[in-house]
């Protein structure tokens, strides 16, 4: 029976490896953090700090609504209710057509600031 891979071939103690990793982390904390992040999200963008972040920043506040889609969906549904948004109301994708109920309340603050109280 073949021996399982990895047994009997290590020359380093497991403790030594851990110590090396710790030393590296102290010398380059950012790199250690980067490794942690890549481990969690292997598909993270190739362009760090580049277009992805900036695009997200530039598009803040963008909502998508097509009145044609909305009216078609309403017509299709006839008497049935339109499917409402899930818990994340800010994400409007796919077949979901936003309805007036889905929009977060955009009341202006008519209440006086508590700093002035």
């Amino acid at each position, binding site marked *: 029976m073949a021996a399982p891979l990895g047994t009997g071939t290590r020359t380093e103690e497991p403790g030594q490896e851990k110590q090396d990793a710790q030393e590296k*982390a102290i010398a*380059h*904390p*950012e*790199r*250690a*953090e*980067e490794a*942690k*992040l*890549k481990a*969690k999200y292997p598909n*993270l963008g190739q362009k*760090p*700090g*580049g*277009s992805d*972040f*900036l*695009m997200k*920043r*530039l598009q*803040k*506040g*963008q*909502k*998508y*609504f097509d009145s044609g889609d909305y009216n078609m969906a309403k017509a299709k549904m006839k008497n049935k209710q339109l499917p409402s948004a899930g818990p994340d109301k800010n994400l409007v994708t796919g077949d979901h057509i936003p309805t007036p109920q889905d929009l977060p309340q*955009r*009341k*202006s*603050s*008519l*209440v*006086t*600031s*508590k*700093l*002035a*109280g």
Partner: protein
Amino acid sequence: MIPGFENFMQDVLWCFSQVKGTIDIGVTEADIISTVEFNHTGELLATGDKGGRVVIFQREQESKNQPHRRGEYNVYSTFQSHEPEFDYLKSLEIEEKINKIRWLPQQNAAYFLLSTNDKTVKLWKVSERDKRPEGYNLKDEDGRLRDPSMITTLRVPVLRPMDLMVEATPRRVFANAHTYHINSISVNSDYETYMSADDLRINLWNFEITNQSFNIVDIKPANMEELTEVITAAEFHPHHCNTFVYSSSKGTIRLCDMRTSALCDRHAKFFEEPEDPSNRSFFSEIISSISDVKFSHSGRYIMTRDYLTVKVWDLNMENRPIETYQVHDYLRSKLCSLYENDCIFDKFECVWNGSDSVIMTGSYNNFFRMFDRNTKRDVTLEASRENSKPRAILKPRKVCVGGKRRKDEISVDSLDFSKKILHTAWHPSENIIAVAATNNLYIFQDKVN
């Protein structure tokens, strides 16, 4: 003792003075303070919040009865500056959050300030009314019209004193000039113009003209796929009306001279610190993004804030800052989680004291930091209700980085990252500071001996 000229860290003890706002278990988003600014004399202190409201505090006259109590700030005026809007054409929700407030220098009895949200800048006039006309002929004291046939005599209305009323009126609305989100406004030293900066463009306005503005910087690439950096902050030089600076998400600052050309896409000076390539990581560019840039009062230096440091640059030296101060370097080993919870994108501001000898900026856990540029000493203080007894001296705080934690220290893992101090302000000539801690405004003063 002239403030700022003493040996700062030894002689100045910061004391609690006032706190504004309520103690709520859950903070209403609208109450989150988004900007704080003293006016040029320090008599007025303005705050803006996420709900689009502005509150102005005025310093009371110092009384002879209580000489140990410096003038306190009381509410002077409050108004709704901006309201939420929806741009139907672009399907864009426009937040009412006040991004910045800037005061104009006072030129008559009224006060003027600029307030801006993501898209629209407004000029507000705040004025006092303490007299009113009485004795009209055609209406009675309640304002109801009198029957003209009953009027047999003629009198001249006279001005009589009334209870002080402070009115805020919008005098100009500067709209529709920004495709992207406004991050800065800055009043020019000529007092006739000001600039507004968004992610990709900077516009120059004349206070009198609302339907036109000049575009002075445009960094939008022809192909948006090539976008690599955005404008993060901008400010006019305090004395030279032709000079301004703007900072970028790549950690660079450009100084521009409006005399060279109408469109200042080509900078006059370019400030960038060389990076050590061996230190580069995924986070490098994100944490180098400058969140605030401020000229010193003297106009000789600029200060920039990025995620972990505050830097002072000499306008005469472009290749590196003359001073770098670590705000919270212990966060370097927490960048992974700070990226995941978005805290790495928090935009901290920074301020100079009146004499440019001390700089201040905020951190997490309601901590804020001060650095004395002369003695190179620094202190960490906390804005908290626990230290809010009148004139209580603030105790310096310390974050313990690892190993043994002393009794008064707090460990990095215990820091509350939801309590962030992004906005602070320093009185133009005295040691009085205003610190915004989420929905509360703290005012601290130095101890009067």
